[in-house]
């Protein structure tokens, strides 16, 4: 199972293989957690959202067509939907700064949790971006998706992704330079 590509694991999952699905969970659990943490949710909310995304993936596993899209495109589409639902339901846009502070407090100092000053600064800077810019950075910079694939996930044209990345990096530069100032 460990050597199989994602698309093949998804096909096995669609046939009902829990073993294949658990391998996908193992591969993408941290990726999804960080995806949500960078949108300024607390650690526990991040874990909860990652879990809900995997459950959504299980529900929609038969809808995935390996020839039509990459697995990551499909996964991030579901994660983005989960994130939209979360923020819509909780109306947390106004309290993201508080959530961020809580996230820092909640972060478990267990093995590999990775709570460091640099990581915190990046998360804070990401948290200050608008959701539209943040998700573009998340997909292109952190998940290394090409513009076309990111555009597919976000449902916008390639040129829009390009301009969003340009603006987001400009803003991130400003935010991080503010962070470094005493």
């Amino acid at each position, binding site marked *: 199972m460990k050597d199989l590509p994602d698309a093949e694991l998804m096909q096995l999952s669609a046939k009902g293989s*829990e073993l294949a*699905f*658990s391998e996908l*969970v*193992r591969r993408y*659990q*941290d990726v999804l*957690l*960080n995806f949500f*943490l960078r949108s300024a949710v607390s*650690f526990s909310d*991040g*874990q909860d959202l*990652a*879990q809900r995304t*995997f*459950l959504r993936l*299980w*529900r929609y596993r038969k809808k995935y067509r390996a020839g039509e899209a990459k697995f990551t495109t499909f996964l991030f589409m579901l994660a983005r939907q989960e994130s939209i639902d979360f923020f819509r339901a909780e109306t947390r846009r106004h309290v993201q700064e508080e959530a961020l502070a809580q996230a820092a407090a909640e*972060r*478990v100092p*267990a*093995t*590999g*949790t*990775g*709570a*460091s000053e*640099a*990581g915190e*600064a*990046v*998360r804070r800077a990401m948290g200050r971006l608008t959701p539209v810019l943040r998700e573009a*950075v998340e997909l*292109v*910079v*952190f998940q*290394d*998706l*090409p*513009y076309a694939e990111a555009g597919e996930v976000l449902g916008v044209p390639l040129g829009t992704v*390009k301009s969003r*990345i*340009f603006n987001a*990096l400009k803003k*991130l*530069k400003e935010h*991080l330079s503010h962070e470094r100032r005493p």
Partner: protein
Amino acid sequence: MNADLEELLEGDAETRRLVETLRRAPQACVAAGFSARVMAEVRAQRRRAWLSAPSVFAAAASLVALLAIGSIFFRPVPKPSLAAWASPPFTVRLAPYNPAEWYVPLAYDAPAAGVNLEAEPLCTREALAACGLR
């Protein structure tokens, strides 16, 4: 780094440093037992799927169909008994007798029949001969 990002960072050292900083930032890890929890939830979801409304409806429909087919092929055979011999194969319940209901007017309308039978001799020679009577 993908080709699109490389192209964007071409000749912009400051933004490249920023992207590298972002990507080097330590990543958080899920707490222990996360995947086990997800898989337990997946199994629970699978169990619930068996009890969903469409599956319950399908099960009920197949049960009804099975009973219907079974009732055709496994119909109980009527056993001969004393009561079966004693009673007629079917019984007609007679209504209370009312002579008025049994009266059927059978008036003979000669002109309507077209032939006046009364005028004709009933015992003609030919008729008697046909009957072997003379």
